[in-house]
C-alpha cells in the first residue's frame, strides 16, 4: 500500500483552501453578486459556528438563533445610537465593521457564558428545549423593549439603518470574509487540540469523560461561548448587509438552517459543516428556483431521510468508502 500524498493526509485543510479560493475567485471574476457570495459564507459560517458545540460536544442547541439575534441587535443598535461606533465601522475597508462585529459577538458570548453555563447542566432534549426557551425569551424581550427605545422611528421591533449608518458593500464583504476564515480556522484548531478531544469525549460519554479527568463543565462552557461569539458576529454582519434587523432574526428557521447543514454534512468533523453548507446552499438555491414555497418541505423530507438512513451524514458515508484499498477514513482524519 503506497503512502497517500501529503495533501491528502489533511483533506480538511485542502477543502478549506479550495472553498476560500473559490470565494476569492468568484469575487475577482464577479460572476456571483456580492450578496450571493456573502450568503454563501454566512451559511457555511453559522454551520461551522454551531458545529463547535453541536458537532464536537454533542449538545444540540435548537435555539442558536438567539445568538444571531443578540449579535444583530447589538450591532445595529450600537451604530444607531453611538456615534463613535458608527464612525468606527466605516474605517479600514471592512476592518471597522469587523471590530464592531467583534463587540456584537462579545455580547452574544457574554449571554452564552452566563446563562449558557447554567443551561449546559441539562442534557439531551432538555438542553435543546432550554435553548429554545432562551430564544423565545430573548425574542419577546426584544419585541417588548426595542420599540420603546425610539417610538417615533422604529416600526415595532424593526430597526432600519438610516443612510448615515450604511457601509459600502465591499467593506461588508471583507468583514464577512474575515469572520468566515476565523470561524473555519477556529473549527480546525479546536478539532486538532486537546480541548477538541475533550469535547468529543463529552459527546461519547460525558460521565466517563468526567471520571477520566476532562473538565466537562469548563469545556462545555468554553465551546458554547465560542460558538455563540461567532454566531453573534455573523448575525451582526448579516444584519448590516440587510440594512437593518427585525425580530425575524430570532426565528427558529435560522436554527433549522444551522442544524440541517451539520446533519447533512456529518456531525463532529470540520469538513461536515462545510460540505453540508455547500450542499444545503446549493439545494436551497435550486429548490427556491424550481419549487418556490415547497422548497422547505423538500428540505424537511431530506433531513428526515438523512436521520433515518444516514445518521452519520455525508462525511460518515465517505468515511466508510474505500479508495484504492485505503479506507477514506484514514485519509480524512
Amino acid at each position, binding site marked *: 500500500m503506497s503512502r497517500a500524498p501529503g495533501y491528502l493526509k489533511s483533506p480538511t485543510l485542502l477543502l478549506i483552501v479550495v472553498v476560500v479560493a473559490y470565494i476569492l475567485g468568484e469575487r475577482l471574476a464577479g460572476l456571483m453578486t456580492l450578496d450571493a457570495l456573502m450568503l454563501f459564507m454566512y451559511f457555511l459560517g453559522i454551520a461551522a459556528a454551531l458545529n463547535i458545540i453541536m458537532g464536537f460536544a454533542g449538545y444540540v442547541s435548537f435555539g442558536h438563533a438567539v445568538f444571531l439575534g443578540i449579535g444583530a441587535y447589538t450591532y445595529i443598535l450600537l451604530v444607531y445610537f453611538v456615534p463613535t461606533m458608527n464612525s468606527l465601522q466605516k474605517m479600514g475597508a471592512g476592518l471597522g465593521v469587523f471590530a464592531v462585529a467583534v463587540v456584537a459577538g462579545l455580547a452574544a458570548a457574554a449571554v452564552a457564558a452566563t446563562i449558557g453555563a447554567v443551561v449546559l447542566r441539562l442534557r439531551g432534549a432538555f438542553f435543546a428545549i432550554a435553548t429554545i426557551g432562551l430564544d423565545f425569551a430573548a425574542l419577546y424581550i426584544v419585541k417588548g423593549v426595542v420599540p420603546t427605545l425610539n417610538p417615533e422611528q422604529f416600526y415595532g421591533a424593526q430597526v432600519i439603518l438610516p443612510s448615515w449608518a450604511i457601509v459600502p458593500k465591499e467593506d461588508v464583504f471583507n468583514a464577512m470574509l474575515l469572520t468566515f476564515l476565523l470561524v473555519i480556522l477556529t473549527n480546525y484548531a479546536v478539532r486538532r487540540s486537546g480541548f477538541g478531544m475533550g469535547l468529543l469525549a463529552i459527546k461519547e460519554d460525558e460521565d466517563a469523560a468526567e471520571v477520566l479527568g476532562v473538565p466537562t463543565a469548563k469545556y462545555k462552557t468554553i465551546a458554547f461561548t465560542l460558538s455563540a461569539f461567532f454566531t453573534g458576529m455573523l448575525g451582526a454582519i448579516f444584519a448590516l448587509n440587510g440594512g437593518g434587523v427585525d425580530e425575524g432574526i430570532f426565528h427558529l428557521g435560522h436554527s433549522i438552517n444551522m442544524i440541517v447543514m451539520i446533519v447533512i454534512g456529518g456531525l463532529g468533523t470540520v469538513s461536515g459543516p462545510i460540505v453540508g453548507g455547500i450542499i444545503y446552499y446549493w439545494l436551497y438555491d435550486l429548490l427556491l428556483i424550481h419549487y418556490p414555497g415547497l422548497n422547505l418541505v423538500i428540505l*424537511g423530507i431530506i433531513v*428526515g431521510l438523512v436521520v433515518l438512513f444516514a445518521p452519520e451524514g455525508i462525511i460518515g458515508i465517505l468515511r466508510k468508502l474505500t479508495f484504492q484499498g485505503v479506507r477514506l477514513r484514514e485519509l480524512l482524519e
Partner: protein
Amino acid sequence: MDVSILAINVVSGLMWGCVLGVAAIGLTLLWGVMKVVNLAHGELLLLGGYAIAWLYVTYGLNPLVGALAALAIGVAAGAAIYWALLHKLVGKVDIITLRIEMSTLLMMFALSIALYNVYSHVTRSEPRGIGLWHVGPTSVVKFGPVAVQMNHLFAAVLALFITIAVHLFLTRTMVGKAIRAVMQDSQAAALVGIDPVKIKMFTAMLAIGVTALSGFLVLLYESSIIPGTAYKYAPLGFVIVVLGGLGSILGSFIGGVIIGVVYGLSKVIVAELYSPMASDPIALSTAFVILVLVLLFKPEGLFGRR
C-alpha cells in the same frame, strides 16, 4: 392600579391557561412514554384547526362535529407518524439513549418544517377560522366587573372536559393503564405481557389525536389561525410539560393554568411599571424564564417522578 383590570387579566389568563394546558397533553404523553420531543407539536395542533376550519367553510359542517373529525384525523396521523418516522428509531428499544433522543428530535423537526411550509403554501399564510360561529367573539358574559368573551369561556370549559376524559381513559381503561405502565417501566411492562410496540403506537395515536382536537380550542380562542400560530403554542407547550412534569395529564393542565395566570398578571404589571406597548411580549417572555428556572431547580416538574 385598577383592581378590575387586574381581575380581567387574571381571568382571561386563566381561561387561556386551560387551553394551553390541554394543548400540551399530547406533548407530555409522547415525551413521557417514548422520550419523543415532538417539535412538530404546533403544526399537528394546527392540523386539527385547519381541518375544522376547512370542513366548516367548505361544507358548512358544525365545528363541534368537525372537532370529532379532527380527533379522527389526529389519531390516523398519529399511527402514520409512528410507523413512518418513529418506529425505526424507538420501536424496539427499551432504554432510549441520548443519541436516539436526538435523532427523534431531528425527525420531528423535519416533520415540522415540512408541515409548516405545506400550510404556508396551501393557505398562502392567510388566516383561516370559523368566523362568527354561534359562540363568536362578539358575545360577552359578565361576572360582576369581569367581562368574559363567550368563545374563551367555552374553550376553557371544553378544555376541562377533555382533560378529565383523557385522565379517565388513562386510569380506567386497559389500554390507558398499559400506557401508564410502559411510561413507568417499559421492560417490566413487557414482562407482564404488554406489547411495548403496540402501546407506543397507541400512545402516538392518543397523543396526536388529543393534539389535533385541541386545535379546536385554539381555533375558538384565537378565532383564526395562521401557520405562525404553531410558533406560539408549541414553545409554550414545552414550558408547560416541563413545569407540569413529564407524562402527567394533571400536571399539564395545572402547568397551563399557571402559565396563563402568570401571563395575565405580568401583562398588567409591565403595562403599569414599564410601558403598555411592551406588556404583551414581555408577559410572554416570563413563560420562558419559568422554563429555564424549572429546568434548573426542579427538573422533574410539579407532578413528575424522577
